[in-house]
């Protein structure tokens, strides 16, 4: 049985304020960008900001950055499962046009 030596890293308070500030800036940028029509890049920009914010929350607020390797595996597997869900669902939506009228 593995030993109980999980180090509980304590980050300085200033780091949490910094991350919080970054999240707020991300939100502000999202709102500002919404006023401009970037065409095909609308979704790209929005999702990039959103993913960056999510990453910051997971790494710092949820302490994954200082977690054990097992914690990393658990956190990563959640996202792998999300990819499975999106990927297989898209396997339907992206191939619907390939044959017209079948099974409808």
């Amino acid at each position, binding site marked *: *049985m*593995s030993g*109980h030596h999980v180090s509980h890293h304590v980050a300085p308070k200033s780091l949490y304020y910094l991350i919080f500030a970054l999240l707020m800036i991300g939100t502000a940028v999202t709102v500002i960008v919404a006023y401009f029509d970037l065409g095909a890049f609308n979704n790209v920009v929005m999702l990039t900001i959103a993913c960056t914010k999510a990453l910051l929350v997971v790494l710092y607020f949820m302490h994954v950055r200082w977690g054990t390797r*097992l914690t990393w595996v658990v956190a990563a*597997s*959640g996202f792998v*499962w999300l990819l*499975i*869900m999106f990927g*297989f*669902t898209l*396997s*339907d*939506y992206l*191939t*619907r046009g*390939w*044959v017209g009228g*079948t*099974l*409808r």
Partner: protein
Amino acid sequence: MDTLNYINNGHGLASWLLTKDHKRIALLYLVSITFFFFLGGLFAFMIRLELLTPAGDVLTAENYNKMFTMHGVVMVFFFLIPSIPAVLGNFLIPIMIGAKDLAFPRLNLISWYIYVLGGIFTLVAALSGGVDTGWTFYTPYSTAAANSHVITAALGVFITGFSSILTGLNFIVTIHRMRAPGLTWFRLPLFVWAHYATSLVMILGTPVIAITVLLVAAERVLHMGIFDPALGGDPVLFQHLFWFYSHPAVYIMILPAMGVISEIVQAFARKNVFGYSFIAFSSLAIAIIGFLVWGHHIFVAGQSVYAGMLFSIISYIVAVPSAIKVFNWTATIYRGSISLDSPMLYAFGFLGLFTIGGLTGLFLAAMGLDIHMHDTYFVVAHFHYIMVGGAIMGYLGGLHYWWPKITGKLYSEPAAKLAAGLVFIGFNLTFFPQFLVGYLGMPRRYHMYPPEFQVFNVMSTLGATILSVGYLLPMFYFVHSIFRGKPSPADPWGAKGLEWEVPSPPPTENFAVTPIVTHGTHQYAPSKEVGVV
């Protein structure tokens, strides 16, 4: 004078409702789950009563819709999913791994309260007029079309999902961190492996159903365009999200049952299981591959044929690890020293019925055949062979196997054998005719049908009556055993495993001294070098 155990250690309602003992929480679950089982059974009885005759004479079409919806919702979310994990898993996992409790005892108690809260929401939905969408809450039935209490019932499902997530989390942490010294992963009982795999499915799948029913509520209330084409949504998207969870949910029901069967088969064949690591890893394989097959529910709902092919092939592949288990159990029984006690009768029932359920699933995973059979009684028969013939057989087998451990009392074995026989006969008489009538073209979810299908439906209703007697009988001899049963020794079956080394019923702390494990927990046969096959 009784010795101190978890049952007599503390009296009064508060000592139960505020307990942090995993064994007492398991009993809280047992009582509440049994309530929902018989409630769901009541709805099933109404369905079978209506279908006794071809005319829709007992219930209106609307009320019939509500009956099968409530039957599905109650049975799936409030009985089958929590049944084995929350009752037997809760009770046994800490004892099987030599621990004093689960990793998070408070969280365990909260899980039960969350389950009860979800149950209350569903009961309120049922009593205030019911839901008529089908247990799948398909859009647009659940958004544009339905006038019934969809949001209340969906919230019930949403809430109880968290109970499931927290239980899975608790099990995973417990199995990782709290095994007794020497209890390595490959010495764990297969029941524990099965629950580990189940917990993974609970954690990775349940959040998706929670969000999906929330999106339904959002569309109903706020008219967000997610599933409604008029608002730019897609109803098939709902089916993708719903089955992303709900196909794996079948494995939440069946994997723990497989864990139970692995234990029973070893105990009553007096043999170490054949191919331990194959059974252990097939649980993980089922948990993972089970997430890649959900599209087989959407073959005719407008899904692209290419996605259909992908899902069809993987659905065939997921049958392989299940088949591995069935073959390995059979090989375990082969040349074993078999005793036909009631738990073993349920295990035999499971083996046959699960095999039929699994093989007919392959019929439905074939895209061409599914066009003929989808939404017929063939499908109903198929999944009842898995969920009733498989999961409930496993649950009852496990309940009979560990009842002396849980209560410290022996029940009437002849009565239990009679019940097992009635369940087996009643079950087959109920559901086998449904394969035939479904193949002949009787659709599901209608309260009337053409007269030529009546003979099958009469058989089915007769079978359901026998089945309900088989389910009610254990209520009597189990309750009777609590008051009048002979006290059980620590190991009434001569079975192996840490749970049989502690007294029946176990003391609150399970083990006075943490056991040190030096071999696999089930040593029915001497080690291989002795040369015994």
